[in-house]
């Protein structure tokens, strides 16, 4: 299932609630790029882009794009007050030194143990290992933003990933258009079901056991 912009924005808006003032946050390619638009500027969240920006600002208005100011996903951006430019080796220095509070990224599959697959579909599509492997290891919290189902309407959350892994046991939370799921020691913990989906629609479209929160929020 390919998500429309409303669903993508809904996921991004929910993701923004995981961010607190003053945090340093990396936004991966895809839905994560939308997250910045749902945060108050005065929170001074410093968005990090591996191509060499700290302090990425909101999307510019059409026609105001700067030809030299794009994020790692290739989308035009602006800069926030206090931003700096540097080469990519310094960008990854920040990553490895554990300076990112949250990393958001997309995924092809996530397992019940938090394994992540997002770099290749053998025989079909090769993305490449990219920066994800270091981001998911060193960021304090790793949150996957993705559609609940793939293009053939199969669950992307599964017992074991069938696609080659990018990294093992690295995902802390999954946010889809249907649910917010935390990866815990005991397994996948269903924290929220997103409007207008039902609990049953989430359970049947997830290929792994879910621990249902006692305080399950049914609507966002």
């Amino acid at each position: 299932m390919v998500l429309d912009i409303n669903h993508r924005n809904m996921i991004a808006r929910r993701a923004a609630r995981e961010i607190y003032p003053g945090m340093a946050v990396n936004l991966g390619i895809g839905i994560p790029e939308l997250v910045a638009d749902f945060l108050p500027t005065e929170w001074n969240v410093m968005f990090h882009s591996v191509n060499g920006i700290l302090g990425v600002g909101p999307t510019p208005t059409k026609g105001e794009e700067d030809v030299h100011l794009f994020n790692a996903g290739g989308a035009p951006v602006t800069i926030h007050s206090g931003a700096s430019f540097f080469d990519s080796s310094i960008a990854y220095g920040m990553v490895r030194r554990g300076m990112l509070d949250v990393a958001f990224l997309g995924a092809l599959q996530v397992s019940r143990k938090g394994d992540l697959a997002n770099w290749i579909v053998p025989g079909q599509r090769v993305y490449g290992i990219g920066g994800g492997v270091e981001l998911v290891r060193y960021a304090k919290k790793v949150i996957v933003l993705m559609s609940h189902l793939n293009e053939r309407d199969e669950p992307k959350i599964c017992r074991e990933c069938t696609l080659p892994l990018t990294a093992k046991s690295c995902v802390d939370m999954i946010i889809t258009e249907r649910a917010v799921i935390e990866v815990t020691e005991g397994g996948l913990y269903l924290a929220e079901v997103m409007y207008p989906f039902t609990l049953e629609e989430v359970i049947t479209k997830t290929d792994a056991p879910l621990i249902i929160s006692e305080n399950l929020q049914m609507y966002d």
Partner: protein
Amino acid sequence: MAAMVSKLITMEEAAELIQDGIRLMYGGFGGMGSPDHLIDQILDKGVRDLTLIGNDAGFSNRGIGKLITQERVKKMLTTHIGSNPQAGRQMMEGKLEVIFFPQGILVEKIRAGGVGIPAILVEPGMGDVTAKKEQLIVYAGEKYLVEPALTADVGIVYAKQADTYGNLIYEKAARNVNPLVAMAAQTTIAEVEEIVPVGELDPESIVTPGIFVDYIVLTRGGNG
């Protein structure tokens, strides 16, 4: 060893430096900060069998991606090819050998080449997906992967400004991997928007010292 004469050459002269089969390293990230006009000139010259070293495969119809689309590349050392489906297709068809590194490790390998450090050690778990067994070593009781430095025959970078000595200043996110590539190649060619007399750039703001840069071409100085 020559006196400080300008390093400015024409696009055609620059393309002559790119021979069949060389290791060509390039700056740019997702097509941004890429020496696009110089790449067009290299394409026009008909170079082939290149080994490319750089961050990503760009786009199929722009910049470095064109060299792939037109099948001038036999091997790539890179991190991401998702934005150029041509690269993935050629890889699956066995026409293009692609060696993937985690992005932060690739850029450190290039920097190591640039400053003459033979190799770095990285934590296992980083790049295990793509790393080979022989890279694994144990040192002081801990496991590491050896990641040798990367260098190239020729490096091509994009900058906003150069002086005639080759000092470079970049522009916003077009900096990306360019300063690393500029140091790591045997011969470095910078495509720049503007060239100014030596002494006009603020020594404090220069990102790549001119000693690393062998030649300069002007973006508007070629056929691009």
